[in-house]
């Protein structure tokens, strides 16, 4: 980790500026990255890290500023230009074609050809498979070239993304939040891979908001805040507290007081729940657990192991093949969503724009999305617009929801954080005894995150029952009273949070005994 400052500069960004409608994503950023170093870009969600790297990768064009690669000034018209210069990028949301094989995904855009009958250029899949196998061995990233990517696990998919870069002989590798979806042990493995890549002579740029990973991996770290470069630290000589403070820029009250109270009676009881998906695969298998009044139960697990399906089945979006769901003692297993809402379930879903809101409608309409048919919002099936307005203004006030035109704002134009605030406000305002949260702080900055955490703890104090699904172990450890770990649809273990260690949870998440 020493002496990288002496190496030549491979990437130099000067005065990069990028404006999107309504937000200045990158404001006059200048950086130098040296050959062979592991360079971290730290910042909150929304700080502009991904935008900056997308510019480096050729996906975006900067409004102003210059890019120099190995001393040469360049202008990228598309990622192809960046790739030719040896730049590769693995995005946070993988860009993979689910029903193509591993090989097809890797070669897409740079396919090896063979001439059929000496004339027609066809894709040479045999050759491609061989090359992928060779690369996979060489770098220790084991994949099955013929596997359909849609059937692969998240960490295998990530390997495919990395292989995409290596297939194109990239030596400047950009990784955007690579550990977001991985279990602790998989994170360890990835850290090993990154070190290995550096050993092979590559330069790695790491976008992250996780300080401990920066400490373990990076040589230097640039901190972005609200689109501007604040500082560049030498990681070895800077402590995490300083980096965190720079990232956030202000004192954020991260203190959350969680009282220790005895739990009340069970609010949600899930008994032997099994949920089938297509092709006779069980997404959820014989899962049983209880959430009591005043308790926060968190379901941990690598993405796609059944946690979300459990929540969706409790809510009514999916059907249970067998088992029972009891709410306040009543069997609701066969009930419609509308009935379940009325019986007392609130739900903050994972996708705020596609599920939790109707973004083409106004804020006040969205805040009454579930209650429009009842008094006071409608009387004898006729809507009372004034009641919509009053209700919206009340929630805007108490939950600090910011929008362009108040209750009449079309939700589409609101920021992600405020959209989430609106959903949380609506769901809590329903006053239901059971509240379910799936990935409630995804894509939010630290202040908004803390705010939502505080609200969860408040609801807990009121005696409500909370079911939390999150991919961030940190969030779970902070909030949960009880943690259940899912692997392949099976609840491997469920126990009070004090009794579990991060390591044990990680092992359970990966199916290790």
């Amino acid at each position, binding site marked *: 980790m020493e002496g990288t400052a002496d190496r030549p500069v491979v990437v130099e960004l000067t005065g990069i500026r990028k404006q999107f409608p309504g937000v200045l994503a990158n404001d006059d950023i200048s950086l130098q990255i040296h050959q062979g170093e592991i360079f971290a870009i730290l910042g909150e969600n929304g700080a502009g890290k991904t935008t900056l790297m997308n510019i480096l990768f050729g996906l975006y064009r900067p409004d102003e500023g210059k890019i120099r690669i190995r001393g040469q000034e360049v202008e990228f018209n598309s990622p192809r230009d960046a790739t030719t210069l040896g730049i590769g990028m693995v995005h946070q949301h993988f860009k993979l074609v689910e029903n193509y094989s591993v090989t097809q995904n890797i070669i897409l855009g740079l396919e090896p050809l063979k001439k059929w009958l000496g004339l027609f250029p066809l894709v040479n899949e045999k050759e491609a498979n061989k090359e992928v196998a060779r690369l996979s061995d060489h770098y220790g990233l084991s994949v099955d070239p013929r596997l359909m990517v849609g059937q692969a696990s998240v960490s295998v998919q990530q390997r495919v993304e990395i292989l995409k870069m290596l297939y194109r002989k990239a030596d400047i590798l950009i990784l955007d939040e690579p550990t977001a979806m991985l279990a602790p042990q998989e994170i360890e493995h990835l850290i090993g891979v990154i070190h290995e890549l550096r050993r092979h002579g590559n330069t790695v740029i790491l976008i992250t908001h996780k300080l401990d990973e920066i400490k373990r991996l990076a040589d230097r770290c640039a901190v972005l805040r609200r689109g501007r470069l604040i500082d560049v630290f030498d990681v070895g000589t800077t402590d995490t507290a300083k980096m965190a403070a720079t990232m956030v820029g202000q004192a954020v009250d991260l203190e959350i007081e969680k009282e220790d109270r005895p739990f009340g009676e069970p609010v949600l009881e899930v008994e032997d729940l099994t949920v089938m998906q297509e092709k006779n695969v069980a997404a959820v298998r014989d899962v049983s657990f209880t959430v009591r009044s005043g308790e926060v139960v968190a379901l941990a697990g690598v993405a796609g192991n059944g946690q979300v399906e459990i929540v969706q089945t409790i809510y009514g979006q999916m059907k249970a093949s067998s088992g029972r769901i009891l709410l306040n003692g009543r069997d609701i297993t066969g009930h419609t969503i509308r009935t379940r809402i009325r019986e007392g379930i609130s*739900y903050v879903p994972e996708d705020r724009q596609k*599920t939790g809101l109707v973004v*083409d409608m106004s804020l006040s309409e969205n805040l009454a999305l579930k209650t429009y048919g009842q008094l006071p919002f409608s009387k004898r099936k006729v809507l009372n617009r004034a009641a919509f307005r009053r209700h919206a203004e009340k929630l805007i006030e108490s939950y600090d929801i910011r929008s362009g035109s108040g209750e009449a704002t*079309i939700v589409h134009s609101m920021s992600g954080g405020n959209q989430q605030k609106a959903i949380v406000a609506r769901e809590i305002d329903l006053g239901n005894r059971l509240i379910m949260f799936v990935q409630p702080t995804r894509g939010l900055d630290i202040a908004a995150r803390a705010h939502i955490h505080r609200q969860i703890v408040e609801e807990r104090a009121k005696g409500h029952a909370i079911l939390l699904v999150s991919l961030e172990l940190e969030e779970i450890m902070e909030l949960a009273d009880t943690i259940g770990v899912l692997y392949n649809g099976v609840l491997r273990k469920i126990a009070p949070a004090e009794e579990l260690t991060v390591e044990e949870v990680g092992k359970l998440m990966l199916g290790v005994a």
Partner: protein
Amino acid sequence: MKQEMKAKRLPRLRSSRLLIPLVSVVSTFAVLILVFVVIGRNPLMAIYSFFQGSGLGLKPSYSKSSSMLTDFLSYLGILSPMLLGSLGVVVGLRGGLFNIGVSGQMLTAGFLATILVGYSKLPPPVSIPLVLLIGLAAGAILGAVIGWLKYRFNVHEVVSSIMFNYIVSFLTGYFIKTKYVDPIIRSSKQVAANAKLQVIFQTSSGLKLVVPIGIFIAIGMAFLIRFYLERMAGGFEIRMVGFNREGAAYAGVPIRNVMIRTMLISGALAGLAGVTYYLGYYSTIVPKDLPSLGYDAIAVALLGNLGPVSCILSSALITIFQKGAVYMSASTGVVREIASLVTGILLLFSSLGVSMRDRSRHYD
């Protein structure tokens, strides 16, 4: 509070809401003028002749039994099904479903009303409500089937509607040719006067004024549908599903019921269009002939920006071309089909307008 509301509404008017339909209309007129010039006709006279044909301009001369007023009433007679059909398309599209089967629904309604009531001797106070009822019901049922097929079997409503259009046209064609034909006019036997949706006055100067009942129904429906969509819980649900089906399901909206209800209402409106068309404007059904009005209604709906009351204006405009085409053709010698071309081009421009305002949907 009310002052605030008014202030908030004004800026909307100044925005693209009126601008884009306006631009569409102006562009279409420009193209039309160009076409007339290219084929060597006086464009302004030609355009005016459309208005003359619709009773909105004076013709140089009238026959003994007609006048500008009778032309205008006739124009209203064809305006009614156009408006009703477009309302059907509007309701469908607001609910996220494209009812392209308006023609088939019109034909079903018209046919059933004709054979059940059209040849009967029932007095108007009985026959007219009955005709309307059959129109509503026939269209509603066909629409509901299309909606159900979409929900239950995921059959795309555009394809199924077209299939039904052809099936209905062949079926009714068969029955007309075998059982209900009037061999002289080679179409179905004329509907009796007592069953027609008209009120007839004789003026002192000997003119027969035929007032189409349909126009009142159509205009009334426009306001009713707007109220339903904007102010009632049922309409709110339809709009939710149209914007975001997944979000609506999450909110507890019963998607199946809403989808069927949307197509049911849409079909019912198309059915009303059918009876005002076949038992109002016309009195006979030509076998296997699907009214092109079903497709024109789509243009009306898009030009009217999917707003029920705006459709009154857009249908008025498009009908001027449809109705006035005969007179225009007679006085300029240009083929009548130029009216369909106008509709086609207007449709092109107004659909681009609808797409550009996707982000800020305000309707009426």
